[in-house]
């Protein structure tokens, strides 16, 4: 069955004027928009989405704050642990110091030859620093540290050799051993000594710490994505009718998605700033006790605060995580939002 019919042209000028339109206007409405119009539309849509998202979050300040707080705790745990590890490394001295190689020279090597050897060692590519310790300096240090200084003064000759304290560039068991052998083979060298066991233990402990922080970070990032995803899902549910209407009047998926992405990013920003504040306050609070303890050992050690670079990374990372979490949530639910 097929049929066709054209209605009578009933254009009534007075009616057209009353409603403020014209047939010509209707005919012209499908003109292709130019780039400027499209760009303005895109910009305006982003501005409106940002303002709308911010407004919705501010309408529920307590709920929004607690969401940010949960995210902030998830962010500050691994970040706080990483900062503490950094401080522990600083306390224990640098890695390089822990892995120094002591190169003991033969007793017949004089100070001038020792200095030349130091320069030779310092020029090696794997060496970061080489320090000459003369026989006299070694004896003086030993007298101070051993507690048998008076007895040592009775000895007819200085029994200690001159030495070069070598700081390697890289902490790697194989490379350190190779460097030790190179140093041991140099002329005038009696023995090159490296406490590899200590290095290995320290490496293992710090690697364990790093791995723990990495695992915790992964776990908490996943938690954070779930928190933001669930929060955005609730927002989507609350705005289901609006989304259906928007889709029916020509809103693209991008248009529907946009306010939720801004919402995720704003949650992330809030969480990042709160996490920063928590860490700064937490480290400051802990530092009082650390300074008191270190003082008892005659040290002026204190915890460093949150470095500004790390703080910026924390906030930017939080914004990105919020954005990604929101994107995943909307992507998952967008297909369910088809108009019914």
């Amino acid at each position, binding site marked *: 069955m097929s049929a066709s019919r054209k209605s009578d042209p009933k254009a009534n000028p007075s009616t057209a004027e009353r*409603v*403020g339109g014209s047939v010509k206007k209707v005919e012209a409405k499908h003109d292709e928009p130019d780039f400027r119009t499209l760009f303005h539309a895109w910009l305006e849509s982003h501005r409106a989405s940002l303002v709308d998202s911010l407004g919705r979050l501010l309408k529920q300040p307590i709920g929004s704050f607690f969401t940010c707080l949960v995210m902030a705790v998830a962010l500050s745990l691994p970040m706080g642990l990483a900062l503490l590890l950094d401080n522990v490394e600083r306390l224990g001295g640098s890695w390089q110091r822990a892995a120094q190689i002591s190169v003991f020279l033969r007793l017949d090597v004089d100070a001038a030859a020792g200095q030349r050897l130091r320069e030779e060692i310092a020029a090696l590519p794997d060496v970061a620093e080489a320090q000459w310790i003369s026989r006299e300096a070694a004896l003086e240090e030993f007298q101070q540290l051993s507690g048998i200084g008076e007895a040592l003064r009775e000895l007819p000759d200085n029994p200690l050799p001159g030495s070069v304290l070598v700081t390697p560039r890289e902490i790697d068991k194989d490379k350190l051993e190779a460097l030790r052998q190179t140093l041991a083979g140099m002329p005038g060298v009696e023995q090159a000594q490296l406490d590899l066991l200590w290095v290995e233990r320290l490496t293992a402990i710090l690697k364990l710490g790093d791995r723990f922080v990495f695992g915790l970070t992964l776990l908490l990032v996943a938690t954070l994505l779930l928190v933001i995803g669930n929060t955005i899902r609730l927002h989507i549910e609350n705005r289901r009718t609006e989304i259906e209407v928007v889709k*029916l009047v020509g809103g693209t998926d991008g248009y529907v998605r946009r306010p939720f992405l801004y919402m995720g990013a704003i949650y992330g920003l809030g969480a990042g700033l709160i996490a920063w504040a928590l860490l700064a306050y937490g480290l400051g609070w802990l530092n009082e006790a650390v300074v008191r303890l270190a003082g008892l050992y005659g040290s002026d050690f204190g915890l460093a605060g949150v470095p500004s670079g790390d703080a910026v990374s924390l906030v930017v990372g939080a914004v990105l995580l919020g954005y990604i979490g929101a994107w995943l949530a909307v992507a998952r639910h967008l297909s369910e939002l088809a108009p019914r």
Partner: protein
Amino acid sequence: MIRFDQVGKRYPNGHVGLHELSFHVQRGEFLFVTGHSGAGKSTLLRLLLAMERPTSGKLLLAGQDLSRITNAQIPFLRRQIGVVFQNHQLLFDRTVFDNVALPLQILGLNKREIGQRVMTALERVSLKDKALQYPADLSTGQQQRVGIARAVVHRPALLLADEPTGNLDPRLAAEIMGVFEDINRLGTTVLIASHDLALIARMRHRMLTLQRGRLIGDGEAGR
């Protein structure tokens, strides 16, 4: 404007919504689609809105084949269409102005133009003085007129209405139909799905009659 060519719609559960439907509608026409509940009126509208796709035949809207339309093209198709629902589908947390402005915001028009066009559309449905009120403060008839203003504010080529007078008393229903006729006089094609035969008969426009997904009548209402 619209061409149905042997269009069929069969749902995955085996139910047949439309049987090889064929008709075409000229630009600027005003027509009703009528039939009992389950006749296929809503299916027809859903196909035109690309909410569903035909399972057979060819459906053209303004030259675009809706059987082959991509998901990315659907929003741009819908920007050429205005839709009025029986239940208005208004957003109750937004003012009348903001409800009507929605299609223009999606198009990204500037605030000044949105303001002008919204007020023109509200004047068209005699609700200019209600712009700052919320839909909950309006009567059912006024809410329906807000829905109509939203459907025409972006000057669509085609206006679809699904039982737009279903919840209204006869006087209000006639008033709403008058608004649709005004819009049609400006060149917009109007297609209304309704089972209010008495009202349709009074208006003397083209009427398609559906029964169990088949077209059983095509002629002027009241004859």
